[in-house]
């Protein structure tokens, strides 16, 4: 039998050894979190984030310590995504994701909510546990937040007891094309995805429609086992699908996506045992837009506004700019003239997530401003534009512009 002293020593050594291992492990996680947040190399940040995510519960104390020391918005999106994707179902991970998803000021709250939504898909208990969180965000102004919330709440395959959680809720149909496609991707809704394939719309030069089509075809390919020969860079279909089908002649237009669309439509109809889905070509309106602004905000949702030389203003919370208003040409002419005195540096402030892209006139370079960094002259001009929009009869569009400007106006200006 081992003498008592030896047993005691052995026990002490064991405890010390365990403590040392725990300390080493803790130090390692601290190092990985630090690297995920600060490495100057994108690839190394990404790799470290994945490692931390895979660490799950063990890594969470280091993540929370970083958050406490440096502030929540110093956490990079890759780290939040990695925890959402690989963090497991431990209480530390679940609690953190819940806290982050509930924090309106956290840039990456949607990614945190996505982590919970993924876990809730096949887990009744987690769906019930986070029901009020998902329900609270089905109308969130940030489209990714409401998309992940709706993914759980409006899952047609499951009976999510809305009445039990929050009373009868009547929700508007999702109108943001980006959200519709993302939701269809999550749900595997081939028909909705198919409808995105003809999208070639742009905003301030950003080909967001092609990006939407790209996301749709990637998911369709996974669902159907084929992309039908669809090429995102091919010219968009010249006609809506039914018209193309009725024309009956697709010979010689293989470069066009019409033939691919027909093949995909057949595949979807066969898969669903239903009629052929529809896909209309979605292009920019034949208008020459002179300038515009685009606010992308993970916190508050997006806002788009652009205008023509003769005062037609289109805008709204999605890049298809569903709201239009005509400002009297004389009033808008004066506004345009005054814009020549507005100077916006190419970059104002340090952008982490939320930002405003500004293109006031065709003859100036596009600029970008971080929250609380928009130059006064630009803020003043946009307020004048909001007033002109309001006078022209589109108060909601004007109010939204004023509201959203608040995030970007410099603090001294806000105080005045």
């Amino acid at each position: 039998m081992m003498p008592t002293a030896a047993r005691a020593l052995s026990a002490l050594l064991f405890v010390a050894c365990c403590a040392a291992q725990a300390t080493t492990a803790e130090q390692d996680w601290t190092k990985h979190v630090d690297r995920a947040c600060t490495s100057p190399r994108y690839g190394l940040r990404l790799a470290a984030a994945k490692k931390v995510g895979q660490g799950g519960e063990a890594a969470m104390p280091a993540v929370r310590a970083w958050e406490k020391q440096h502030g929540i918005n110093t956490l990079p999106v890759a780290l939040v995504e990695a925890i959402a994707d690989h963090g497991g179902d431990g209480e530390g991970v679940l609690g953190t994701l819940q806290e982050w998803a509930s924090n309106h000021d956290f840039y990456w709250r949607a990614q945190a909510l996505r982590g919970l939504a993924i876990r809730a898909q096949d887990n009744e208990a987690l769906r019930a546990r986070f029901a009020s969180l998902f329900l609270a965000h089905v109308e969130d102004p940030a489209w990714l937040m409401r998309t992940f919330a709706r993914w759980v709440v409006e899952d047609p395959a499951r009976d999510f007891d809305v009445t039990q959680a929050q009373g009868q809720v009547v929700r508007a149909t999702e109108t943001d094309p980006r959200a519709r496609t993302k939701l269809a991707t999550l749900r595997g809704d081939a028909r909705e995805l198919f409808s995105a394939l003809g999208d070639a719309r742009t905003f301030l030069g950003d080909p967001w429609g092609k990006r939407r089509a790209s996301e749709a075809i990637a998911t369709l390919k996974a669902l159907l086992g084929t992309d039908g020969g669809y090429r995102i860079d091919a010219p968009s279909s010249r006609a809506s699908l039914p018209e193309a089908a009725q024309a009956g002649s697709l010979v010689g237009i293989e470069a066009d996506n019409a033939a691919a669309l027909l093949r995909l439509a057949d595949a979807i109809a066969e898969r669903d045992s239903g009629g052929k889905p529809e896909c209309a070509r979605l292009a920019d309106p034949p208008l020459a837009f002179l300038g515009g602004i685009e606010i992308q905000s993970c916190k508050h949702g997006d806002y788009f506004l652009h205008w023509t030389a003769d005062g037609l203003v289109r805008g709204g919370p999605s890049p298809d700019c569903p709201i239009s208003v005509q400002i009297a040409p004389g009033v808008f002419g004066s506004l345009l003239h005054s814009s020549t005195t507005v100077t916006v540096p190419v970059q104002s402030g340090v952008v982490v997530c939320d930002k405003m892209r500004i293109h006031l006139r065709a003859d100036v370079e596009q600029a970008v401003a971080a929250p609380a960094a928009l130059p006064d002259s630009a803020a003043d001009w946009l307020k004048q534009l909001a007033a002109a929009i309001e006078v022209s009869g589109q108060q909601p569009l004007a109010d939204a512009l004023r509201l959203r400007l608040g995030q970007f106006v410099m603090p001294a200006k806000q105080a005045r």
Partner: protein
Amino acid sequence: MSHAAPTTATNARASIAQMRSLRSFALLLPLCVLPQDPVRTSFAVLAGFDWTAGMKLPDEVTKLDNQKVQIGGFMLREAPGSGPVTQFLLINDACGCTGTPKMNEIVFCAMPDGATTDIKNGVVQVTGTLYVGEQKEEDEVVAIYVMDVDSIQ
């Protein structure tokens, strides 16, 4: 194009630059004789597959290795900051709000020696020589697409 993992990021950058220089030098002679029109490509091609580390890259992208290409996208700083840069990321999405760009959704762009550029807002067309293949630092893949930039429009 994978190579031994250097001990520091600085060394890695130097070795990548050296490798690119050698490869560029190898291409110089034919370039002197035959002016090369850039091949127009896009993220639909570069990001058109699910990338996993160590995989064989599709022919569609490997055929672009060492080619003069033009690609449209958004400029992004590799790390938050302000002022001109010598390197930047070219990505397909203006806002990282939709998630982290995957490795095959990024072109790591390097300006010519001694040159800098401002990060331009909106879509830009970047022309330069593209190198395709996994690049590693400290055993981690840090890039698949690297470009020596000739011009940004």
